[in-house]
């Protein structure tokens, strides 16, 4: 069964490789500076390295699919995303795999009656504009700098050729590494909890955790995608939008890497996300356009560009629709459980928490102790009674979500000790035998035992990591 569920993760990995490798090596191959074979091999090696060495970090382990709370659901979400990316790859359009995943998750949300965070939707739309625009600006600046250097130092034609080639290869390798590190959790993250692998020690020198083994398989799937099917999209990026000179290709790839790096680095991410810019690799197309505009805009093939941009809009929609349809099919025809039903109930504990947060509970009185089968139902009732802003809304929703969690010894044994510190594990052990009705109660109890389980108001990175570990705990202790 594990192998069957894993297959959709591998399919997602394969289509990610077939599509996203174009971001890293498309322009290098398009400008004929690096042969497709060389690019594909270099890209594959660094993707696998990135997946295994950097992907298994605690902060990423669950990925976006982590919010999908049943393995059959995760299977469909991954499959729907993979299929939509594959279709776009067939049409030779570069798309964002993570947007396909978000689209598929929205499909799952609709099916399971979960609430979709409207912020993530607006973010997708904003990135269609913001990410390429930023990359375009970077590409122009970088190109100007490189040109200045070449002219200033009178670099000999063949030396310039050599330097550009090595530059492209280096930036490409770096880009492949981060591609693997950033995306492997989306491909394989959900399967960690059901993985049958055990840790392997190679001659006592290397230690491969079960997650790393899983990520290695995922990395190989991505690499196979690169080797077998990435050529088409690479050609679109490298030649389809406009013909790039090698120096321009170098500026484009560097701009792309720089934008991704900026988005990925924690300090800047806080600044950028506070302005509503998440990290999604649509940068490469923007960077190519930037160079095109710098050259007067005549070389740009607007038809291809139109196709690509409409592909960005279509991809999440196809993924969403397909995921919705397949979930319906799987649930009703094969009777597979595609989601854990989440019930919502205004328990006395929840009321106390809401009051404490300074939200008036007067209008909630009529809702107390009633069971609601989905978040959507609860939301409807809430909306009938009062108009509140979305933060308060989300707070009430998370306070009333019912999750029967029981801390048993058997479950504690399942916790991966690589991911949590000894201090955190101790706190968990102290709670043995206790049960919780709400997730936040477990969080409070853990936070009461040690500061290591407490959220910090300023450290987003720490909070993200904590949330991922907690999500893992919920799935282990859920009854």
């Amino acid at each position, binding site marked *: 069964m594990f192998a069957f569920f894993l297959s959709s993760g591998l399919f997602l990995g394969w289509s990610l490789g077939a599509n996203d490798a174009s971001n890293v090596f498309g322009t290098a191959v398009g*400008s*004929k*500076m690096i*042969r497709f074979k060389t690019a594909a091999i270099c890209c594959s090696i660094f993707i696998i390295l990135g997946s295994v060495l950097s992907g298994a970090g605690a902060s990423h382990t669950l990925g976006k699919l982590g919010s999908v709370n049943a393995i059959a659901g995760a299977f469909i979400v991954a499959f729907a995303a993979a299929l939509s990316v594959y279709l776009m790859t067939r049409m030779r359009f570069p798309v964002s795999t993570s947007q396909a995943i978000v689209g598929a998750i929205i499909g799952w949300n609709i099916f399971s009656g979960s609430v979709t965070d409207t912020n993530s939707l607006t973010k997708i739309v904003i990135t269609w504009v913001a990410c390429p625009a930023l990359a375009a600006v970077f590409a122009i600046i970088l190109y100007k700098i*490189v*040109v200045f250097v*070449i*002219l200033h130092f*009178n670099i*000999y*034609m*063949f*030396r310039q*050729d*050599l330097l550009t080639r*090595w530059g492209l290869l280096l930036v490409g390798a770096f880009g492949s590494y981060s591609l693997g590190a950033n995306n492997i959790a989306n491909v394989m993250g959900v399967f960690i909890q059901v993985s049958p692998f055990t840790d392997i020690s190679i001659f006592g020198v290397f230690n491969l955790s079960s997650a790393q083994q899983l990520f290695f398989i995922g990395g190989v799937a991505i690499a196979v995608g690169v080797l077998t099917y990435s050529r088409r999209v690479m050609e679109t990026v490298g030649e389809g939008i406009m013909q790039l*000179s*090698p*120096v321009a290709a170098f500026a484009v790839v560097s701009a792309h890497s720089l934008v991704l790096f900026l988005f990925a680095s924690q300090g800047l991410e806080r600044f950028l996300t506070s302005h509503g810019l998440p990290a999604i690799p649509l940068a490469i197309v923007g960077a190519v356009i930037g160079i095109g505009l710098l050259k007067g805009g005549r070389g740009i093939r607007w038809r291809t560009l139109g196709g690509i941009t409409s592909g960005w809009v279509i991809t999440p929609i196809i993924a969403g629709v397909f995921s919705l349809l397949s979930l319906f099919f799987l649930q009703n025809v094969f009777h597979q459980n595609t989601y854990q039903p989440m019930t919502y109930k205004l328990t006395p504990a929840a009321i106390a928490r809401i009051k404490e947060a300074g939200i008036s509970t007067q209008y909630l009185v009529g809702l107390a102790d009633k069971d609601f089968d989905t978040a959507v139902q609860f939301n409807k009732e809430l909306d009938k009674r009062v108009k509140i802003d979305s933060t308060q809304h989300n707070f009430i929703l998370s306070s009333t979500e019912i999750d029967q969690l029981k801390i048993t010894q058997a479950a504690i044994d399942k916790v991966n000790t690589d991911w949590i510190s000894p201090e955190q594990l101790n706190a968990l052990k102290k709670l043995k035998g206790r049960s919780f009705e709400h997730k936040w109660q477990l969080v409070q109890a853990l936070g009461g035992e040690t500061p290591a389980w407490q959220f910090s108001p300023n450290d987003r990175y720490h909070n993200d990591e904590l949330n991922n570990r907690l999500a893992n705990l919920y799935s282990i202790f859920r009854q």
Partner: protein
Amino acid sequence: MEFSILKRRLDIGKQIDDFLDRVSESGLLFKHGVSDFLKGNQSAFSEKIKHIVDVEHQGDALRRSLEEQLYIQTLIPESRGDVLELLEAMDALLDRFKGALYRFDIEQPEIPLQFHEGFEELINCVVEAVESMVQSSRAFFKNISGVADHMHKVSYWETESDKVSTRLQRAIFNKDDLHLSQKLQLRDFVMHVDKIADRAEDVSDKLSIYVIKRSL
């Protein structure tokens, strides 16, 4: 590995320099060869012919080796075609010098003394035009913004050579004591030499396009 690749590329740079040296040398040999011919110094003239044939062989070998390396190592993909065309055009100039010198040897034209100065002037213009072209080509590889500094000289020498050639032809046909056949032969020689400058200008026109294509 990187070191050896770097070395190989520098070798290519050196080979291109060598090749352009051959083109430049062929111009000088042509100039001195014709001068020897006009002076009636047959042995020195034959030596120049032998020398220019050698130079032409070396040029051909270098050009072939360069073309092969550019393709096998897929170097400068964006300008490879242009560089090959440039090398071939420069090689054609070298061939023309050799061909013209051979023509003097085969036909042994009788050139009246009063035209000697005109011929030498014409040959000087042509050789200067080609020399400027060689310098433009070198700049194309080494310092692309410097190409313009040499390229305008090619046009200048080509125009000069046209002027000299017209003047010379007019003088030839105005000379009454020559047979028409001799006049026609001399005119052919003048035109044949003048053509070399025209070809140099054609190459320079092409080069200016290559420069635009490579401009950053």
